[in-house]
């Protein structure tokens, strides 16, 4: 918005700047209508105006915006187009300059329209300080209630929701669902058992993400499952937090896990604590916990950035079993190299369902697998059709690409 205010000021105060005017060259003065060069006495013929100047409300937006299109002026040697706007109302039209565009342009978006006003736009072809004008139809901007450009997202949402809900429904009816083994998740039991045998705590790091990120949510869900096991075995579970909103949820998760397995008395709220919001200060503190409390098992699950390797290497140094997982593709290589087990992207998201073995959750995993099949089909079939659009007569198939455009 600031941009256009300044732009208006600029144009109101000085002549419209030619976009590529080199310093020292004269800029055309438009509004006066007379030539700047007094030596040139010959009258200047104005260039032919652009044609078919069409103004219309910008579709699929929140209002306050009008699109303008025109056919170029037949004169090829024009310096550019001046776009002006006048409010339709009582009295004479008073045009104000909006912008000066190079001659190659043939459209303009006015984002400073008032939804309450009707406007007429004028596009003037400019050459040697003379201009050929063409006016648009009257127009008014308006907000829309539905963004039709996003229709494809609704369709995609509907398909995915259908598969997930369908298999959840199936699961509810008691249909047996198969889920293959995921090594990193089978190791959770073993890792908890190891800590119990060694009499050492388990460290659970929920990452540095906030709850707007699904990996963090997934991590918290896994925390709930792990806390059930530690509550049963009476193993200490330490959860340092970086996000203040995640912190109370993590504490509730562990508390509820203790209640669920009937050991509410063993819940130690002090073991789930908040450290600091700063990424590396958090990493420094967690490193400290690792070397001083010597956990037998580290879970590094959630969103991690550069601190991924700081934590994973320190964990390796103290000889902990490490199960890591993140959806941050750039950090996965570090977990893979430094940890015993790594949950890659989707495996992390599926983990709580896998560990809880709750039919409804498993049902949604099955539904997602059908979603994957759809993706493969769309990618292969879409490619094939899109390639066919290279053939004569089939170029309407480019619609494939437009359907997926967001």
């Amino acid at each position, binding site marked *: 918005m600031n941009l256009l205010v300044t732009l208006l000021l600029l144009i109101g105060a000085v002549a419209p700047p030619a976009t590529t005017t080199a310093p020292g060259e004269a800029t055309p003065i438009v509004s006066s209508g007379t030539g700047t060069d007094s030596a040139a006495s010959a009258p200047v013929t104005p260039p032919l105006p652009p044609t078919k100047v069409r103004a219309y409300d910008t579709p699929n937006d929140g209002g306050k915006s009008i699109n303008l299109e025109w056919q170029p002026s037949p004169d090829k040697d024009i310096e550019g187009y001046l776009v002006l706007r006048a409010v339709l109302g009582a009295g004479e039209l008073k045009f104000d300059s909006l912008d000066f565009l190079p001659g190659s342009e043939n459209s303009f978006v006015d984002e400073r329209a008032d939804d309450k006003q009707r406007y007429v736009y004028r596009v003037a072809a400019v050459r040697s300080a003379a201009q050929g004008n063409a006016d648009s139809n009257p127009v008014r901007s308006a907000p829309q209630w539905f963004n039709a450009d*996003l229709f494809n*997202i609704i369709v*995609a*949402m509907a398909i995915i929701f259908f598969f997930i809900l369908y298999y959840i429904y199936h699961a509810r009816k008691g249909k047996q*669902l*198969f*889920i*293959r083994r*995921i090594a990193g998740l089978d190791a959770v039991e073993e890792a908890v058992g190891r800590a119990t045998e060694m009499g050492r705590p388990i460290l659970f790091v929920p990452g540095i993400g*906030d*709850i*707007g990120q*699904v990996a963090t*949510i997934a991590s918290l869900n896994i925390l709930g499952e792990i806390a059930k096991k530690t509550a049963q075995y009476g193993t200490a579970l330490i959860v340092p937090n970086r996000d203040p*909103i995640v912190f*109370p*949820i993590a*504490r*509730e998760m562990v508390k509820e896990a203790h209640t669920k397995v009937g050991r509410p008395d063993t819940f130690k709220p002090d073991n789930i604590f908040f*450290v*600091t*919001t*700063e990424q590396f*200060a958090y990493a*420094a*503190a967690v*490193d*400290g916990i690792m*070397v*001083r409390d010597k956990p037998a098992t580290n879970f590094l699950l959630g969103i991690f950035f550069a601190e991924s390797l700081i934590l994973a290497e320190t964990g390796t140094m103290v000889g902990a079993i490490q199960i890591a997982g993140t959806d941050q*593709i*750039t950090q*996965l*290589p*570090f977990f*893979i*190299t430094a940890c015993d087990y790594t949950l*890659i992207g989707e*495996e992390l998201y*599926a983990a709580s369902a896998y560990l809880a073995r709750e039919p409804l959750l498993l049902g949604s*995993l*099955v539904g*997602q*697998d059908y979603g*994957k099949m759809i*993706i*493969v089909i*769309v*990618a*292969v079939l*879409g*490619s094939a059709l*899109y*390639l066919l659009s*290279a053939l004569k007569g089939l170029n309407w198939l*480019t619609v494939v*690409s437009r359907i*997926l*455009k*967001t």
Partner: protein
Amino acid sequence: MHISTDPWIWISALLTFCIFSFLVKDNPLYKFAEHVFVGVSMGYTIVVVTWSTAWPDLFEPLFVRNFAEVSIGAKVLLVIPMIMGLFYFAAFIPKINWTMRIPMSFLYGYAMGVYIPSDIQANLLKQIRDTLLTPSWLTNRLPQDMKATVALVAHTRSFNTIVDALLMFIRGPEGSRGGIGPLIILIGAIATITYFIFSREHKGILKPVANTGIIFLMIGFGASFGYTVMARLSLFIGQVQFLLHDWLGVI
């Protein structure tokens, strides 16, 4: 050699050493730096949140400004999140501690609702579209690069030219994503997603496809690891330059 006389530089330099000492083993210097770091960073966050959010957006309009400046409606709209925020402290009152789930559920619902459509937009539709083979690739890029490959093969003199021909075949000229590259990406992406199928045993046709996916994953992770090494080493070089240049002035 000009050793710095700026006390702040000295503080920065000494703290840097404290942190690096952790590489040898945990020690009091590191513990000191770690605890300073935690305290200072949390204090800074508190101050920043105070002056950027809590004060200008909540406490000032709610308690300092009068009704002429902030309408009663606007104040009510501020009281609601305040009450929700205060529910967090119900955790300390056993009888009503369940109310702390109210702000949690608000934030959960908000976050997940916002997430779904943008996730589908950015992680599914856009990615699928970018993976599609395009007609311009088929009609221009591919024939051009194949011709170039054939030319390179025809003039093979050494191992280097064989590699050149191979590279031309796989990705076209340097810096581009031509050749059969887009096809490899399509196949690789499909193989990788097959690896993530959970509801079927990886047997039969799924097995070779999922294994191909693992190979792509490993190449990707290896390449990505190798690519990051330089950035991480630069960070250390930066710290050493700070010590040698700004602090000790030897370089």
